[in-house]
């Protein structure tokens, strides 16, 4: 993975000093809260319901075991013993004191990490494919370009006060695993017919209040020009993006208003001036950065381990895990392992300090000391020898990291919701918990097959509910209850689509039953190996809607929800317990 040289380290160290002084000025009253706000936000520090929350950057989700151990240390020393991995491949700590945050940054800097631009109206942390470098379908490894973009965007002087936040995702596989259609800029690094490397560039995607799938602005930007091309997109956005209305300030609104052709015309007019200028990438620089991502010392191994097959036959749970959580690797004899942070009963994406240390140890022993954080809030060990899988599984199981549910119904993506977030309309985590517990039965989940369920506590879509096959959004608190909208038909990847709401909203306790009914329609209607999303696309929303709203299900017998009645939230004192 990338390693800081003296330049990177100096920039991060100077940031710590700058930030320490900003906090000092805030604490002494020299800075008003209003003035401090944008400074702390560009450093990932939010004021949440209970305390300060710090979002730490994990560039393109790649992290070393040493860095993971630092998270465990931060969780113990400054927080309540756990952290939350997010859909933006970052980690958040929820219970911090402002006075401690400069020390936390200093601790992070000691392991080549920071919280730069994890929030604020600037270019945010670059996200990427969690299987980068190891996926079988990879065309070009996106990681060197992700790192080059990270450096380019870090403290970019012109784009630190954009109209709104700005998110860039990059993927390099045939299959998009970085949700590039749902980002302000989505980049697919690829090769043209001549074998030259370049980027397919999408622009104006995004979720939130106005969900939009990104449009292609250029089919192929040669690698040399990617930084200048992105610079021109940002300049046009900075100049013309709306600033009068926060809800209309994202680049997607500008692209829609101008139309992609006019937007492209303006970008390319700006770019004509920059093309071949000093921002043009050199092969030396790409090679230099790429040298950090060259293959580890893979052994020559057979691609089939007979021991594995024997054990599989003996152990149903191992076999489940193997088929759900382990993915093929491009090197024979190796495998990609997804460690689930979705054990029903836990908050999606939460990990305790002990778990962080455990995964760091596993990474050291089984995966060259590296880990990845997925935008689905799980962890990945990317380079595991197949012959180590049994031991790894046994050891990871001790830390509750082997729930065999990746890509299945209980692999729920969820934002923090009303327990933490000041913007929430409703709770997300307890709802995720209740749904996961309702569908815990593995055979049933296996029968349902591949499906994504995403929960956001409000329209902002931090849980990316628009691109879940089933999406749940908190819409309001009313009558001592919380109300949620349910939508279906969303997806990410190459066939990205935005889900549509099925009808009037439901209370907290009704939602699991609604999910049950949606699943029921799917099981009734599906053809052969059709996935949930494919059935929705084929038969449309009507049959689902009909079944969900047909009868007053709260009066029916055998309700899933009945088994899990949860008290309505008490808003005066926010409901919270660290692990439920």
């Amino acid at each position, binding site marked *: *993975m990338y*390693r800081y*040289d003296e*330049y990177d380290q*100096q*920039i991060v160290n*100077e*940031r710590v000093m*700058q930030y320490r002084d*900003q906090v000092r000025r805030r604490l002494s009253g020299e800075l008003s809260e209003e*003035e401090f706000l*944008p*400074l702390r936000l560009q450093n990932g520090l939010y004021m949440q319901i209970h305390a300060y929350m710090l979002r730490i950057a994990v560039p393109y989700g790649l992290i*070393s*075991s*040493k*860095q993971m151990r630092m998270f465990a240390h931060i969780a113990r020393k400054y927080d309540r013993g756990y952290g939350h991995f997010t859909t933006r491949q970052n980690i958040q700590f929820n219970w911090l004191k402002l006075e401690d945050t400069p020390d936390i940054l200093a601790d992070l800097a000691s*392991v*080549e990490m920071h919280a730069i631009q994890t929030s604020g*109206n600037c270019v945010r942390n670059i996200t990427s494919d969690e299987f980068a470098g190891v996926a079988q379908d990879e065309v070009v490894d996106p990681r060197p370009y992700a790192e080059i973009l990270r*450096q*380019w*965007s*870090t*403290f*970019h*002087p*012109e*784009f*630190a*006060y*954009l*109209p709104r936040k700005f998110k860039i995702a990059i993927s390099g596989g045939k299959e998009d695993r970085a949700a590039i259609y749902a980002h302000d800029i989505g980049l697919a690094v690829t090769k043209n017919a001549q074998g030259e490397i370049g980027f397919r560039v999408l622009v104006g995607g995004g979720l939130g209040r106005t969900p939009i799938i990104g449009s292609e602005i250029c089919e192929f930007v040669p690698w040399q020009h990617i*930084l200048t091309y992105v610079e021109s997109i940002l*300049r046009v956005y*900075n*100049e013309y993006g709306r*600033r009068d209305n926060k809800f209309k300030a994202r680049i997607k609104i500008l692209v829609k208003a101008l139309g992609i052709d006019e937007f492209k015309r303006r970008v390319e007019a700006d770019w004509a*001036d920059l093309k071949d*200028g*000093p*921002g043009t*990438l*050199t092969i*030396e*620089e790409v*090679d*230099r*950065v790429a*040298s*950090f991502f*060259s293959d580890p010392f893979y052994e020559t191994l057979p691609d089939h381990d007979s021991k594995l097959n024997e054990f599989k036959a003996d152990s149903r749970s191992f076999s489940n895990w193997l088929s759900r959580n382990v993915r093929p690797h491009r090197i024979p004899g190796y495998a990609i392992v997804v460690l689930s942070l979705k054990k029903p009963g836990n908050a999606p994406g939460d990990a305790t300090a002990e778990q962080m240390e455990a995964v760091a140890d596993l990474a*050291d022993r089984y995966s060259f*000391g590296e880990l990845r954080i997925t935008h689905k809030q799980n962890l990945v060990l990317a380079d595991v020898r197949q012959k180590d899988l049994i031991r790894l599984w046994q050891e990871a199981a001790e830390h509750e990291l082997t729930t065999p549910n990746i890509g299945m119904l209980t692999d729920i993506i969820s934002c923090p919701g009303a327990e933490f977030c000041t913007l929430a309309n409703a709770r997300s985590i307890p709802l995720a918990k209740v749904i996961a517990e309702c569908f815990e039965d593995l055979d049933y989940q296996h029968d349902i097959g591949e499906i994504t369920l995403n929960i956001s506590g409000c329209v902002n879509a931090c849980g990316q509910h628009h691109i879940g096959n089933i999406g749940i959004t908190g819409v309001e608190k009313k009558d001592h209850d919380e109300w949620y909208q349910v939508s279906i038909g969303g997806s990410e990847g190459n066939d990205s689509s935005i889900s549509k709401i099925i009808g009037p909203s439901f209370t907290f306790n009704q939602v699991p039953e609604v999910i049950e009914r949606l699943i029921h329609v799917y099981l009734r209607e599906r053809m052969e190996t059709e996935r949930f999303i494919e059935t929705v696309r084929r038969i449309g929303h009507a049959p689902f809607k009909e079944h969900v709203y047909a009868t007053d299900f709260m009066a029916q017998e055998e309700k899933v929800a009945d088994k899990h009645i949860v008290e309505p939230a008490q808003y005066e004192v926010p409901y919270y317990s660290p692990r439920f």
Partner: protein
Amino acid sequence: MIIKNKTIVADDWTVLRLQEHDTAEDIIVSVGKVIVPLKVWRAQHETLQQRKDIGVWLTSDERAEDLKDDVQKFSVIAIDFPKFSDGRGYSIAYNLRARLGYKGELRAIGDVLRDQLFYMHRVGFDAFAPRPDRKIEDALKGLSDFSEVYQTSFNPILPLFRRTQRKGNSTVGTLND
């Protein structure tokens, strides 16, 4: 007092701001060094261009190219930041310097705060009128927050990878060493 070329200096320019009842056509531009709004410059072009002591300032929704024909006539151009969070001025500055080749003083006025100065300097500002309720000595410190930068902008024009020889992976271990 303003900050110019990284030092605190006395300022002999005044910035003309229109009040609600003023119009660009009728406002009387006083004698002496005055930085007038672009609107006034346009409305009173005939008379103002006779004078050597006129600067111009742009609001954040005006554009560098609005000055395309006139840019070399000024020794001072200012860009207003109505709120520090309005970042359009950065692109205006960049375009004035990099695209229109403006060489004179480029001054940031309005909601100019210490923590913005470093960025402003990089896109081409060389003069700053920090918010009057702040200590100008403190603001000056903001210019030296960082000693190294990655990307191209106006200042420096060369990105780090063209200015230095950075080392690749052959010379370093892994983070877990």
